């Protein structure tokens, strides 16, 4: 079920009311969440509910056994069972065809043509998200950082919690699971702020991301038809599309959780104002980057194993992160670019500091923020080309075209900036992105939702109506089809 669909518009109010009717009784409430979550997921394809159920049962029992077992070998075996089942599903559904294609391509490099066809496998929506979430539970118990739960119902609800089931935030059991043991009282203000956050999320998704997608898809799906400036505009718009798409989903998920009394972790924190790539990854998809930090980077030795191993660890983490996003070389290269830049950033830290001091770039003033912000945005955008391109060849063509076919005159040429757009659409996207920047700027200084709550009822209601009407009028849906959230494919 998509958050931006009519089905969800009917599902949510029903679930919300029933939820608060049963909220006082923990068991009933958790059972209700479980049923609602399975219904939410099964709406797309009920067959894949078995995968979630198997993951849930395996990790629940592995967790319990891990806690009781002291022998290291036995504990490792148990952990391996959890890893084998969860990663097994993930690898089979997500990477089988990728491995087959890579295998065939490698032989082709040596002039050998293999007659192997790919399998007809449907990728279960959100498998990467719930697999990582449930894995963190067993790993934390293995590390003795978490006690297992004895409540299968609460654990089942934790694994399948519908607000964040298909695209995160990837919650840790230590943060989310205990919330299933609590009872919640209906808090009007909390629910209202949750609803507002959901509305913001929908605005970002339907008004900005899906509208920008019209331009981006046109250029990236017809690379040969466009040139340098078109590529640049498309890539910049993609940067905003993916941010608004994914952070919009996270806002809806967090808001949805909040309306039910749950606190989900923050997933985005204005990433495009970052002054370094390290900072960018502290602000972008926070739940995933911290997951990789805790369960891949640190187990590999982190930064405590010498300079070169640290760089290698960084690189490995980002290549794996690229693979997590998608089973294609483009995603691996996207991860590798981030890994390499982060290595350079880390390795050149002292040198950069000296140079910046001499040039006066070390101060934290607006012009420096803007300067570094722009550089990081450009680097991120170049990497996004690989993330979005349909193939490596397309990605290279776009990168090459951006630098060799750049024609400044075309920057203001209607035929370029209106690709896939009518002129009003361009204005709406531009204005919405500007509004987003202004909103995030103020939101960093003071909580925007609290600020809105301080205003008069007329202002507040007008504001709410403005958001709803904007979504109805300026949102992309209907004939142009409801766009799935980009991260659903991961």
């Amino acid at each position, binding site marked *: 079920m998509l958050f931006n669909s009519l089905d969800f518009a009917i599902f949510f109010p029903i679930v919300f009311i029933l939820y608060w009717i049963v909220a006082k009784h923990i068991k009933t409430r958790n059972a209700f969440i479980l049923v609602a979550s399975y219904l939410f997921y099964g709406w797309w394809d009920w067959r894949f509910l078995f995968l979630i159920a198997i993951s849930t049962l395996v990790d629940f029992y592995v967790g319990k056994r891990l806690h009781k077992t002291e022998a290291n070998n036995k504990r490792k075996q148990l952990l391996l069972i959890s890893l084998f089942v969860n990663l097994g599903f993930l690898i089979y559904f997500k990477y089988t065809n990728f491995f087959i294609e890579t295998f065939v391509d490698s032989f082709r490099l040596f002039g050998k043509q293999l007659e192997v066809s790919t399998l007809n496998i449907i990728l279960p929506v959100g498998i990467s998200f719930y697999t990582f979430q449930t894995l963190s539970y067993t790993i934390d118990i293995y590390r003795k950082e978490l006690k297992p739960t004895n409540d299968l119902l609460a654990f089942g609800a934790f694994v399948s919690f519908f607000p964040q089931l298909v695209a995160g935030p990837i919650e840790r059991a230590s943060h989310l699971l205990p919330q299933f043991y609590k009872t919640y009282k209906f808090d009007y203000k909390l629910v209202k702020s949750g609803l507002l956050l959901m509305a913001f999320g929908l605005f970002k998704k339907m008004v900005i991301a899906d509208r920008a997608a019209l331009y981006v898809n046109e250029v990236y799906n017809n690379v040969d038809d466009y040139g340098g400036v078109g590529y640049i505009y498309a890539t910049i718009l993609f940067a905003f599309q993916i941010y608004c798409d994914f952070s919009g989903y996270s806002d809806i998920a967090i808001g949805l959780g909040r309306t039910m009394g749950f606190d989900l972790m923050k997933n985005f924190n204005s990433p495009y104002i970052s002054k370094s790539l390290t900072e960018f990854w502290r602000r972008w998809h926070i739940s995933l980057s911290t997951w990789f930090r805790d369960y891949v980077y640190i187990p590999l030795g982190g930064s405590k194993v010498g300079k070169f191993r640290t760089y290698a660890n960084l690189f490995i983490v980002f290549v794996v992160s690229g693979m997590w996003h998608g089973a294609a070389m483009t995603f691996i290269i996207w991860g590798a670019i981030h890994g390499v830049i982060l290595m350079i950033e880390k390795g050149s830290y002292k040198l950069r500091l000296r140079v910046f001091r001499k040039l006066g770039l070390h101060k934290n003033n607006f012009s420096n923020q803007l300067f570094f912000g722009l550089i990081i945005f450009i680097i991120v955008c170049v990497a996004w080309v690989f993330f979005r391109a349909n193939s490596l060849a397309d990605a290279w063509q776009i990168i090459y075209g951006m630098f060799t076919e750049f024609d400044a005159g075309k920057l203001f040429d209607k035929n370029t900036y209106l690709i896939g757009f009518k002129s009003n659409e361009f204005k709406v996207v531009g204005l919405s992105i500007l509004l987003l920047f202004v909103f995030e700027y103020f939101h960093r200084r003071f909580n925007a939702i609290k600020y809105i709550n301080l205003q008069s009822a007329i202002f507040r*209601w007008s504001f709410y*109506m403005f958001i709803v009407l904007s979504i109805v009028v300026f949102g992309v849906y209907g004939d142009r089809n409801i766009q799935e959230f980009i991260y659903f494919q991961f």
Partner: protein
Amino acid sequence: MKQLIIKSLIFIALISFILLKIDPFFIDNSTWKAGSFNSFYEEEKNTSDIIFIGTSQLNDGIDTYIIDAKCNTNSVKICGPGMNMAQTYFNLKEALNRQSPKIVAIETYSLITPVDVFNNSIDDNGNMALKSYKTEYYKRFGKAKQEEICLIYPEDKVYHMFNFFRFHEGWTDDKQLSKSIMTKLSSDPKRFNQNLSRGAKTFINQTQIHKFENKNFDSDKYLISDDEKLYLNKIIELSRLYNFELLFFKVPVLDVYYNNIAKRFNESTDELKTFLNKYDNIKHYDINGEVGGYDRTHFKPDVVSNNQHLNYKGMIKTSSMLAKFINSNYTLNKQQVREAKTLEDILYSNEKIEKDSVFFGDVSGINHLKYSDGDNVTNTIVLPQDQTNIAIWGWMFKSGLNLKKSFRKIALKKNNNFIFVSNGNLKRVKNSYVPNRFKQEFEQSGYSIYFNKKLLEKGKYKIYHILESNKGEMHIMDMQKWVIIE
């Protein structure tokens, strides 16, 4: 929780109110289709005596202003392109929510025409197969629209139900949007629609006529299908429930087309008559049987098909014929004195038009022939037979009425069955005589109009000057001048 539910309900009610209020602005109001439905919605409740329902054939074929002037009635016309019998039924249902007509007149193009989408309008799943003309969107939110939408779009009901969803992307074309909004806000949709129909002043050329003569029309499909009978029966049920009379008629078709398919056309008309004859509150007026179709000068130029649309000339004649039929077959407000509200009310009445002492003007001449040439003064010009076009020129203005803010028209009245009124504003021409005699500001009071002679019938026409202020006030002057078309 209670607070949230109450506030949510109030919010939803408010937002729904706003959305439903702005809903009519999401369709393109600058088209005849929207104009037709809008004119119906703007009609005061329970004031219509006759409701006309039909396709574009009806829209181009009947002028309700003429009907009303001649029948002393108030009528509305609901037309949509390709409206089939099922849609006719839903539109009638909608109409009956607002009006209590004495007569519902249905134009039968969709019944008789040999097109599959009309004959087989309901598919095997019971859903409406016809989706191309989108008449359903012009209706406002309500039960009739909901039933129709459910039948046409069983899978996306909500999306298609509300224009603010279905046409929410309208803002992307700001020119179209502003045109639509301006039309909706500034013009009377009934008059707007009439002006569009009056603008049809071209006709089919001889080459097309040859194609009509030689085309082989698929005569097997001239039939009243089961789907059509199903909805005809539903319409008849409504007529009994709401106690109104039903009148079925088909606006005239092209004579060469009629001759080509006359046998089958008449058979299907007879089939319809037989079907309807069982009911005492239903009448059928077979105009084509009476006139045998009209010649090419009565039709807009179009592709060679069974779908022919009358032009303004055809519309005047058909409206007059239908008005005569209504007057002879129904008793409608005959004794009631009705205030003359429209141009047609005045022109079609036999009452003398009183002189307006501050309305000045003159018809100077037609086709280089002057009414006053030196000592030769006449009040009638005979247009030579060899001249194919008519150019009328003269001047008119009214003291106190800003020429730039008013519309000037002329009317040519042959008799009470044929009055030709010009469309839009007459071309403004400088006139040197007027400033000398009156004021300089009326220098632009000259006018000229030019059109094909074939758009008029043969006969003697009286000329009228018409001035319409931007507030809709109508001023008419009988020029006491005539033109004879031979």
